């Protein structure tokens, strides 16, 4: 097969051009074609983000044509699907923060503790059982967690032990507790990766200076892995903020500004789910409200995600 063109005519002596000919030429075209097709698939992901932003933006802008920004951010009654509708977003933001706070209060200690155990203390045999179990926990669908929160956690734990007032069928506490367990695998596996990245030389140095195992963990490994751990926590917060089903099932759909987690509360994500259940005609106020809250949610999680990436990049320990 001819691979290159040999040009005798136009110059003295042998001149070889490297332009491919024949089957090699066909191959070059295929190569370029393949690269283009693959690149198109990659661009598809960028198109998706643009589509999300565009789809959210249009109706949101229309929404704020009808509803004033000051009412949206300062009023504290959220009743967009009622007559007359009221659009104060604070109750659902407050609900989101409450449920997220409860979830993080559970997930961070349990997750970091599990990570410490897996990375510093566990024997290989124990690791081989615990790690897949965490993966199972991570793979359980959120409906299942919601069912568990409503039908076991609320009656058996919250209703029985919550000292501040009567607890009904729904409670933010039940949803928050179960959500915390749901995000433990995120915190645990990312923290564990960060801890295992700490080189043994640091640990050995601490051992050599007479530290106990606990001191090695808290004074050497934890500070070194801190950037990864913080990134894990930020990611977990982002996940908790966006969680819909657990809250929708176990925390009800009543927005409130109460600070008592024994009551049911609506969050931003669960409002979107709730509003989506009823069929909202396109361009009705209810329809546009979904988009306005969706934009708020997207902004929250986007900012958190960027913060997490920044933290890892800037504060990552460089060993050696």
């Amino acid at each position, binding site marked *: 097969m001819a691979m290159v063109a040999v040009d005798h005519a136009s110059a003295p002596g042998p001149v070889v051009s490297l332009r491919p000919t024949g089957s090699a030429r066909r191959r070059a075209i295929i190569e370029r074609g393949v690269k283009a097709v693959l690149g198109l698939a990659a661009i598809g992901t960028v198109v998706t983000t643009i589509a999300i932003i565009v789809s959210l933006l249009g109706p949101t802008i229309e929404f704020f044509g009808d509803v004033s920004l000051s009412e949206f951010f300062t009023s504290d009654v959220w009743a967009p699907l009622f007559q007359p509708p009221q659009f104060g977003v604070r109750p659902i933001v407050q609900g989101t923060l409450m449920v997220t706070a409860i979830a993080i209060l559970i997930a961070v200690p349990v997750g970091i503790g599990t990570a410490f155990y897996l990375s510093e203390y566990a024997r290989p045999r124990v690791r081989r059982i615990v790690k897949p179990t965490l993966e199972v926990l991570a793979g359980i669908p959120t409906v299942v967690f919601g069912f568990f929160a409503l039908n076991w956690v609320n009656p058996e734990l919250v209703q029985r032990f919550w000292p501040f007032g009567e607890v009904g069928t729904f409670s933010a506490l039940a949803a928050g507790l179960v959500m915390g367990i749901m995000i433990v695998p995120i915190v645990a596996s990312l923290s564990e990766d960060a801890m295992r990245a700490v080189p043994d030389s640091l640990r050995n140095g601490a051992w050599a200076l007479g530290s106990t195992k606990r001191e090695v963990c808290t004074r050497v490994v934890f500070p070194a892995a801190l950037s990864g751990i913080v990134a894990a926590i930020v990611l977990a917060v982002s996940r908790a903020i966006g969680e819909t089903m657990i809250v929708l099932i176990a925390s009800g759909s009543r927005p409130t500004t109460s600070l008592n987690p024994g009551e049911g509360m609506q969050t931003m994500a669960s409002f979107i789910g709730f509003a*989506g259940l009823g069929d909202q005609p396109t361009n009705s106020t209810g329809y546009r409200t979904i988009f306005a809250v969706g934009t708020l949610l997207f902004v929250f999680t986007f900012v958190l995600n960027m913060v997490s990436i920044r933290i890892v990049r800037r504060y990552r320990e460089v060993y050696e």
Partner: protein
Amino acid sequence: MSLDTTLTTSVSPRRKFSNIVFRVLLYACLGIALGTLATLLVSVFSDGESRLSWDLFTNFPSSRPERAGFRSAIFGSLWVVGLTSLISMPMGIAAAIYLEEFARRDRWYNRLVELNIQNLAAVPSVVYGILGLAFIARGPLSFGFTVMTAALILTLVVLPTVIIATREALRAVPPSIRQGSLALAATRWQTIWRQVLPQAVPGIATGSILSVSRALGESAPLLLTGALTFITFTPTSTSSQYTVLPITIFNYTSQAKSGFLELAAAGIVVLLAILLLLNSAAIFIRYRFERNR
């Protein structure tokens, strides 16, 4: 005076105590996580076992719990998740191959794509539901509340997972394989198609199975696009209306009438069983092919 006694007596009782307390706390953390999982599984199974029978697969939803089942949900899930895989796997694998093998890392647009995928992975799944409602169910595509809409939305949800898993698999193939192939005058694509991809297949398969598990369990985005309708038929084409298993479970969980609780729990058992099967298949593949290496 031996070295041993010096070392052991130099640790004060207080330090030893905090050592033990720390260890106990760690065990407690582990216990909370594993204990909750165990409690969940036991409680769901005990709630649902009275309704576990083949009726679940043959009965459609009904307002009477004794007569209700999951037939439409199970077939709907099969259709939706099947279509999702058909769309998401080629696209995700193609994008991953481009990013890993062809893209020059120093180019700004390639870095943008990578950052973008990281962001997409962190977007809450409801937001994909909103996107689907605006663009796919209504808006420019106007597919309505059908199987196709659900599949497209779920594709978006699982695409980052497929891409990231495939990239990991490609990265695990040693560079020496690529270099050897190129040294023997194979082109880039020939190298990828004939050398790299076959080696990366187990990793790609694992990632794909995990994405299928994810798609099977997703419910939030589909709430907004019609999966909650009262469906008493199985899909016949991609433009059929549909429901999926997690949404039907949600439906039964939200019903106050007694009898639906046990039914929902039975549905959960079925769902978890399917997921367990899928994940076992993934682990099996990983184990099998890692041994061959």
